């Protein structure tokens, strides 16, 4: 039974998927086998029905191609005007995505899903516009033919011979919530064709004739029907997985396809996608970067292949290794792939053998239990002959060849003088030594040349008979042959070892860069510091200017981080915002707004983006795949960092909240007790007042007075504390007379001081000092009150004041003979609601907190000490400066 228990992760994932789907708009595709079956017509009819049902819909773009019936159906539907885009002297019109997003209807009609947008549009493809519409919660009706489905494009080309340029990735088609197959028999279609009701864009009549052949139509129809059936089946499976919480991948199968720059790789990718879809398996596309960088053209083709794989739903992995087979097996094992798909080698057998067996052989040797599929590739016209691929892509510079020939020349000259003493054999050994030594310095091409040239020179000048290429003796022949092979192979081997080393170094560089980043991030003390370190790393590693935009915390605006090394333009900001909202990378090297200056990588946390990293480099610098990979790792690291920081802040807030809750409870307990005691006294005393005789009445009045004072004190303390905490406290410094302050303060607390012998020691000439007199009066009163409340009746209280001129400060000290304050308590003492252990009733424990607050606000400090001979001493220090001259009379 336990097997049927839903896996919580799977449950969560499917719920997320459902939630995601609930939020996004619904996509309905009117799907046909070829143009002319009436998709647009069907879509408009459905739209009219929706309109009658009161749905708020607009026409984003609909092509009627002048058909009367279709145009009639368009009547009454609100249309969003198309955007005009000027391109090379002509004006193109495209769907106005921004206007529709602004308008935010419930439903949009977007004809021709596979359409390619005019250059300069937000997205190169119309389906990307549609995805954005769906993402913003707008439903979309669209039309599509089977020939435009990426994975079926090959099949259509094989059926009809026509190449399809505009395709829609299967993954995008997979977004469709509803597919309406617009079906028509081939005969009916041909009839429509003859009536001129079918429009085919830019197609010569002959070609159209060919396309619409009966046999072709039948095949296309079957293709369309099967595709829809397959899609429905997949949806069904997905639904079932939601129902029973089983994983989507029924067999745990996982396919891995090796992708290179060749056009055959494109087919390989499509083949694997079909295979994966039919098995219900996930798949990975792997590109193995070798030691030498690819030419720009090959690099571009490789990227196209990888992005095709990505669009078809593959996970793309880029790895680095000289040994492709080993790399593939490694990635396969890491990702639990069960099947590896590779193209059939087109190299002549001897080339493969020279290179240690072909890829398939090596895979078979090392793959263990992983299945290997070898898919034959048709050679596309104009593709380079594969055996030439082993040539170093980056040709060695001419000076290396010159260097090699120079060294050989010098050696030959030296050999000419040496040969009478040592014999020609040792000259051969010198040559060999030189070739191997040079292979450490120069590229494989020059080494090869050196090997061949030295062999020939040795033969011509040294092996008898000299000055001929003939070799007289059999041993010499054998020697020459051995020399030749050893020189060429050892030269090449050394070159390869060097290449491997370089590759290793590059990988190490990347690892080091990441390591430095992680280290910088983990050692940083604050988010700002970490971001600063990370951006500087990125600057140096990518040779780019970097900027970072961070979410302002409400998810509404992106704020540039100060550590960025440039200020982004309005246009780039728009790109960044797109990347942020859609949680996809955008800008250069991507599918969205590739004309932007920088590459915009969103920092993605689990469910939202927290910011955008922008790398901006000069036009002529391109990033290799590996570098882009690294850039994305940077973004991931930064995202983690930002998330960590946000979590920390959230934790802090939580802690603060808990603390303030605790505080509130204490306050409430304290306040209710403190308020209720005098109130109880008051109400009892007032009730007794009427019936009391004169003597009792006097003492009741005394009680009432005491209770009132206590209440007043309490309220004042609470108000003061509030003022301190709200930050509303702004001391008004003015010249104060210490005697005046002390008199006022003592007056205020005289009743409570009554039980204590009170002594003062204030110099008669205590100078004026700058302070807020009201606050200082409170401070001194609170100091006295504190002493009175916390010491037993009858113990003396002592107040002193004076100026410490050497340190430019004035002090007020209150000492008592009470129990004193243990060292451990002293810091805690100034916190709110702290009362001495021996506290008498009659205080909230706010007194000292207020003293400290008031004194600090005036630039002073409070010091707690021990009274020699017992008791506590509290001293308040304030900065002291003498006042200016008072003008003479």
């Amino acid at each position, binding site marked *: 039974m336990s097997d049927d228990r839903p896996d919580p992760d799977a449950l969560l994932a499917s719920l997320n998927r459902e939630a995601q789907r609930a939020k996004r708009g619904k996509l309905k595709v009117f799907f046909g086998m070829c143009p002319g079956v009436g998709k647009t017509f069907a879509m408009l009819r459905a739209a009219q029905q929706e309109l009658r049902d009161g749905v708020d819909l607009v026409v984003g773009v609909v092509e009627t191609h002048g058909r009367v019936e279709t145009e009639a159906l368009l009547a009454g539907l609100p249309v969003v005007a198309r955007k005009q885009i000027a391109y090379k002297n002509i004006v193109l019109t495209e769907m106005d995505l921004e206007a529709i997003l602004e308008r935010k209807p419930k439903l949009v009609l977007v004809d021709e899903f596979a359409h390619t947008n005019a250059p300069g549009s937000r997205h190169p493809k119309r389906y990307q516009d549609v995805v954005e519409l769906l993402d913003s919660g707008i439903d979309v009706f669209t039309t599509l033919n089977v020939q435009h489905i990426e994975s079926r494009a090959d099949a259509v080309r094989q059926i009809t011979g026509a190449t399809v340029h505009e395709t829609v990735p299967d993954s995008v088609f997979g977004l469709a919530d509803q597919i309406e197959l617009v079906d028509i028999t081939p005969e009916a279609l041909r009839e429509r064709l003859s009536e001129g009701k079918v429009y085919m864009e830019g197609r010569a009549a002959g070609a159209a004739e060919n396309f619409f052949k009966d046999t072709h139509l039948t095949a296309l129809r079957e293709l369309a029907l099967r595709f829809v059936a397959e899609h429905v089946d997949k949806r069904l499976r997905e639904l079932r997985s939601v129902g029973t919480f089983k994983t989507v991948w029924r067999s745990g199968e996982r396919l891995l396809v090796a992708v290179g720059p060749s056009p055959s790789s494109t087919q390989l990718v499509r083949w694997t996608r079909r295979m994966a879809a039919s098995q219900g398996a996930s798949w990975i596309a792997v590109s193995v970067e070798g030691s030498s960088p690819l030419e720009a053209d090959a690099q571009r083709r490789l990227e196209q292949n990888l992005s095709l794989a990505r669009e078809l739903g593959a996970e793309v992995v880029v790895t680095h290794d000289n040994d492709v087979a080993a790399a593939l097996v490694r990635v396969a094992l890491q990702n639990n792939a069960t099947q590896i798909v590779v193209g059939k080698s087109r190299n002549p057998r001897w080339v493969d053998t020279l290179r240690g067996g072909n890829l398939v052989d090596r895979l078979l040797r090392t793959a263990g239990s992983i299945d290997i599929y070898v898919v034959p590739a048709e050679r596309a016209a104009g593709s380079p002959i594969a055996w030439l691929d082993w040539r170093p892509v980056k040709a060695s510079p001419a000076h290396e060849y010159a260097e090699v020939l120079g060294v050989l020349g010098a050696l030959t000259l030296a050999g000419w003088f040496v040969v009478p003493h040592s014999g020609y054999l040792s000259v051969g050994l010198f040559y060999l030594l030189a070739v191997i030594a040079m292979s450490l310095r120069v590229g494989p091409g020059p080494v090869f040349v050196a090997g061949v040239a030295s062999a020939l020179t040795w033969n011509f000048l040294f092996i008898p008979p000299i000055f001929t290429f003939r070799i007289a003796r059999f041993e010499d022949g054998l020697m020459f042959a051995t020399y030749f092979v050893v020189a060429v192979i050892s030269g090449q081997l050394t070159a390869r070892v060097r290449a491997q080393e370089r590759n290793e170094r590059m990988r190490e560089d990347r690892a080091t860069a990441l390591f430095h980043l992680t280290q910088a991030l983990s050692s940083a003390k604050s988010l700002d510091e970490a971001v600063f370190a990370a951006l500087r790393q990125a600057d140096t590693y990518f040779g780019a200017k970097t900027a970072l935009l961070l979410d302002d915390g409400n998810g509404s605006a992106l704020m540039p981080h100060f550590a960025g090394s440039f200020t982004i333009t309005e246009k780039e900001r728009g790109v960044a915002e797109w990347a942020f909202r859609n949680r996809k990378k955008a800008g250069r090297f991507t599918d969205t707004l590739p004309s932007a200056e920088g590459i915009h990588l969103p920092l993605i946390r689990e469910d939202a983006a927290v910011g955008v990293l922008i790398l901006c480099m000069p036009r002529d610098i391109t990033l290799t795949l590996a570098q882009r990979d690294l850039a994305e790792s940077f973004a991931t690291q930064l995202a983690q960092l930002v998330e960590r920081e946000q979590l920390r802040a959230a934790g802090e807030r939580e802690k603060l909240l808990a603390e303030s809750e605790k505080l509130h409870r204490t306050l409430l307990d304290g306040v209710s007790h403190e308020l209720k005691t005098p109130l109880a006294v008051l109400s009892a005393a007032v009730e007794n007042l009427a019936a009391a005789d004169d003597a009792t009445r006097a003492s009741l009045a005394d009680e009432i007075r005491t209770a009132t004072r206590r209440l007043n004190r309490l309220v004042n303390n609470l108000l003061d504390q509030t003022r301190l905490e709200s930050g509303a406290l702004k001391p008004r410094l003015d010249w104060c007379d210490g005697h005046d302050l002390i*008199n006022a303060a003592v007056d205020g607390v005289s009743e409570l001081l009554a039980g204590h012998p009170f002594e003062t020691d204030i110099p008669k000439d205590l100078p004026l000092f700058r302070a807020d007199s009201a606050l200082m009066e409170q401070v001194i009163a609170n100091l006295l009150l504190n002493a009175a409340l916390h010491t037993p009746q009858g113990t003396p209280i002592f107040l002193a004041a004076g100026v410490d001129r050497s340190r430019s400060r004035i002090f007020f000290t209150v000492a008592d003979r009470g129990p004193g304050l243990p060292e451990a308590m002293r810091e805690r003492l100034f916190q709110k609601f702290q009362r001495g252990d021996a506290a008498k009733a009659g205080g909230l424990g706010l007194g000292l907190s207020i003293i400290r607050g008031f004194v600090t606000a005036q630039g002073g400090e409070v010091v707690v000490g021990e009274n020699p001979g017992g008791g506590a001493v509290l001293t308040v220090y304030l900065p002291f400066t003498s006042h200016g001259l008072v003008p003479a009379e």
Partner: protein
Amino acid sequence: MTMAAATPTILVIDDEAQIRRLLRITLEAAGYAVVEADTGQLGLSEVPRSQPDAIVLDLGLPDMSGLEVLQKLREWSKVPVLVLTVLAAERDKVAALDAGADDYLTKPFGSAELTARLRAILRRAPEGDEPSVVSFGDIQVDMAARLVRRGGAEVRLTAKEYAMLRLLVVHRGKVVTHGQMLRELWGPKAEENTHYLRVHMTHIRQKLEAEPHKPRHLRTESGIGYRLVED
């Protein structure tokens, strides 16, 4: 000063009914007639109607601030005003005094304090009727002769000391703000130099008070000014 002199009328402007009731009880017991208003607007319209001899004005009113009431009132009336404020608002007190209030009282206050303050602000007699000799404790100030005596012996004060003392004597029983004193004695530019006052006051107290550091008559109102207390 006819009927009003017999039973002076006090206008109480306060939005708290309980405070108004309490003030009425206290003031009527002390021999005043009381008129009440619960908003600033009503209070202002009540002034011409009942011609009060003094106004007790709460600074915190619901419709307009007590300060505004004071400013409007002072445009056309010199009737003495005692403002009521809450503690910890020295700035408001000073502002009210500068705007023309005659004195202030901090809530909560005792009834003795209230009647004493009212007496002081009501004592303002018509110009010229001011007695030329004022005594408090063992001190006599003869303003006509510009002479100060303590226990019969003449006390020599400097010109500024005498000017300060005279100001307090004229306004005896009432608070005189630092600003008022500085403006009067040193001109409008000297308002920041409160240490002038502190220094001179120290000297005056040394000459006149028995315990200069615990003055009985020349009292300090923290953060506001000085007050001459007669008894």
